[in-house]
């Protein structure tokens, strides 16, 4: 029965399940149904186990709700209250719709994680197939060491999505269309709205202030496009425009950006200034005409447009880099090696007999001793011989010498003995090698579980060690022996599985020793 601490969210009477009348209870973490008149629940499912819910179509006579579990089972509830069946069912459905997503994530996450791991690592997948699918080991044990703590791991590493940048032309892309009767239609998509908000935070602020209290969204955007803020000639005529504030803020922002300058030390913007030789080829000493009075009206409007363009570009770039890109400046102009850093003081190596390193792995005492007389004799002899040296290339080799040399070099000869043993990987075909690799991986996994149980301190470990021993025996019976028979039937009698058997035997003997010790301790 439900524990007292469980909170009951909804109770629906007259719900039939498997042709039995009863009551449906929706609790905080599970859904349960008990037959009428009885005290206990016959059906109880955790929300985490439910994959989805289905309802019968509206026109049907029977009003039903079906719960499909992750395991594939399904349970159907028939709402049989004559008056309020539809209402009941909808109420239950709504509640489930709210509750299921909360629990869904946790269960799915684990499953997703497992699937992902199996897909990414083919070795792991093969191991899973060998061990779990063939029932040598249970799935829980397999995943016990591998999953770690799912709930605590940071999902951030797997969500490496890049931020989408802002197109510089987003405002220009909103091409107005004539509406027929002297009006303009602007098409705004969610992307454009987002770009505007990211680039001009002042506009975002205005939006959050005014919508939905004062203006509807449509009105806000209409005003936006109507305002002089948006249009070319931004003459701040002090109109009652909610956007005039924005214009003033922009001016301030632009000025501060200019003052800040460019932080990149590799770019020297000031050297790009126009250095014109003024009229008179630099000879005349007239004052440069940069005062504002001389500027024509046209120039000032051009200046305004250019200022707006610069500002727009600056805001777009700033929006993109607001996500915290690191500055290049410190890394680009400094070479670590060339700087004198305060390194910790080290002690110099002081070698007394450094010529020891130069001596090769040859014993100090040479094997041959030659007297100086010998040396002189030999040198004279050779000099004498070579004084009249003339190559005699027709008498270099006698046929007997040649044939004995060839015999020595042919397979089976004196010099070729080591090569007679073929490498084992050339004799065994690749499928057999592959199977052997899988066997090794599976055996390794099982042995790892087995050996990690020692020393056996807790009853859990005792159980585990006995289970692992039976697993090992089962593995040997189902996998290893058939493989051995197969290779014996088909191929040379090379002992490919000797080492595997040795490892298993070591495990068995260790288990045996442990068991006898345990018996002795008990008696």
């Amino acid at each position, binding site marked *: 029965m439900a524990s007292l601490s469980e909170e009951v969210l909804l109770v629906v009477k007259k719900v039939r399940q498997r042709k039995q009348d009863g009551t449906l209870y929706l609790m905080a973490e599970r859904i349960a149904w008990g037959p009428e008149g009885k005290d206990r629940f016959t059906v109880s499912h955790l929300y985490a186990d439910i994959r989805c819910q289905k309802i019968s179509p509206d026109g049907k006579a029977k009003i039903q709700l079906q719960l499909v579990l992750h395991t594939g089972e399904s349970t159907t509830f028939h709402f049989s209250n004559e008056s309020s069946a539809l209402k009941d069912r909808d109420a239950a459905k709504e509640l489930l719709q709210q509750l299921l997503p909360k629990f869904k994530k946790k269960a799915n996450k684990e499953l997703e994680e497992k699937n992902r791991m199996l897909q990414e690592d083919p070795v792991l997948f093969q191991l899973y197939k060998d061990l779990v699918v063939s029932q040598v080991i249970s799935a829980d044990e397999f995943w016990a060491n591998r999953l770690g703590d799912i709930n605590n791991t940071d999902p951030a590493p797997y969500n490496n999505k890049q931020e989408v940048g802002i197109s510089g032309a987003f405002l220009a892309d909103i091409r107005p269309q004539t509406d027929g009767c002297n009006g303009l239609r602007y098409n705004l998509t969610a992307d454009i709205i987002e770009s505007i908000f990211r680039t001009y935070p002042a506009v975002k602020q205005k939006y959050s202030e005014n919508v939905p209290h004062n203006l509807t969204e449509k009105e806000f955007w209409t005003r936006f496009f109507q305002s002089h803020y948006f249009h070319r000639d931004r003459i701040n005529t002090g109109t009652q425009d909610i956007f005039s504030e924005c214009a003033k803020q922009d001016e301030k922002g632009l000025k501060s950006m200019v003052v800040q300058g460019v932080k990149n030390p590799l770019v020297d913007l000031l050297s790009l200034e126009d250095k014109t030789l003024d009229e008179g080829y630099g000879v005349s000493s007239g004052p440069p005409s940069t005062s504002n009075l001389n500027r024509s009206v046209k120039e000032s409007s051009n200046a305004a447009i250019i200022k707006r363009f610069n500002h727009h570009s600056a805001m777009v770039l700033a929006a993109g880099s607001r996500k915290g890109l690191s500055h290049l400046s410190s890394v680009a102009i400094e070479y670590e090696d060339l700087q004198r850093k305060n390194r910790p003081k080290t002690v110099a*190596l002081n070698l007394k007999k450094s010529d020891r390193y130069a*001596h090769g*792995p040859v014993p100090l005492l040479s094997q041959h001793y030659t007297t100086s007389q010998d040396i002189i004799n030999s040198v004279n002899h050779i000099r004498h011989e070579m004084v009249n040296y003339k190559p005699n290339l027709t008498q270099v080799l006698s046929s007997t010498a040649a044939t004995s040399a060839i015999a020595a*070099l042919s397979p089976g000869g004196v010099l070729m003995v080591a090569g007679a043993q073929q490498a084992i990987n050339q004799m065994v075909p690749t499928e057999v090698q592959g199977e052997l690799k899988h066997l090794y991986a599976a055996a390794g996994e099982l042995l790892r579980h087995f050996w990690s149980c020692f020393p056996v301190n807790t009853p859990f470990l005792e159980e585990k060690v006995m289970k692992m021993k039976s697993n090992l025996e089962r593995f040997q019976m189902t996998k290893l022996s058939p493989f051995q028979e197969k290779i014996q039937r088909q191929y040379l009698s090379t002992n490919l599985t000797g080492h595997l058997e040795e490892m298993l035997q070591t495990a068995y003997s260790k288990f045996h020793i442990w068991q006898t010790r345990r018996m002795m301790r008990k008696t």
Partner: protein
Amino acid sequence: MASEDEINLLVIVVDVNPIWWGQQAQREPEFTLSKCLDAVMVMGNAHMAMTRTNKLAVIASHCQDSHFLYPSKSWRGGDSGAEDASSSGDGKYELLSIANNLIAEEIRNVMSKSEGNSTDTLLAGSLAKALCCILSIKTVYIGRDTKSRLLVIKAAEDCALQYMNFMNVIFAAQKQNILIDACVLDSDSGLLQQACDITGGLYLKIPQKLALAQYLLWVFLPDSEQRSQLVLPPPAHVDYRAACFCHRNLIEVGYVCSVCLSIFCNFSPICTTCETAFKIQLPQMVKPKKKKLKQST
């Protein structure tokens, strides 16, 4: 298959240690330095005859210096060469006859000098010269593929003092993808075994010196690409054990000073190379309890 334009350079380093060869001539008069050089010449001719783009260099490794037998500096004038060639009269490929004559002339010069007191062959130096020769060929033919290898014909024993230089040469050759092959006449050489193992060449100690030409042509004439298609003597097991610094014994398990990395076969509390003191924890000794002496009044 090697392309037509690929230059294949073979550098043969012949150990002409006069003491060893003089003793050898007294031990076994059928096989002397002359015979050895004849075999080398046959090998060189065969190599040059295989393709037009094959090139040859021969270095004699003596106790005092290393000398290029071919190509030699004296081969400048085409005239003198032509005369010699035509005088041989047997219709031999000119390049081969010139080469043979040059080698013979140079070796006569080399062996006629005998100064100095050293008895060890300067093998490391000759190998270094060979590597330089290979590099110079590479720079001369910079546009074309060049493949080079080194063949060492060794007679006398290893000299332990050349160990460092030898290892440097070996690693330089490995970096440049130059094979080092070794044909050993007398006693096994650990350094050359290592050289062949590291660079991927062949090491062979020949049982019969008289058949040297046959061994050279069978085993060392094919280049590395062709060797994969042939059945050749398998590589021998190389002894890479280190030698302890105190006795120069080859050891498998030893003690290494953590400061100067010198290797010893026995533990000693002070490293003799860098004079660092080491402590080993001895098992704790239980001090016997001292009985309190009663003060006598």
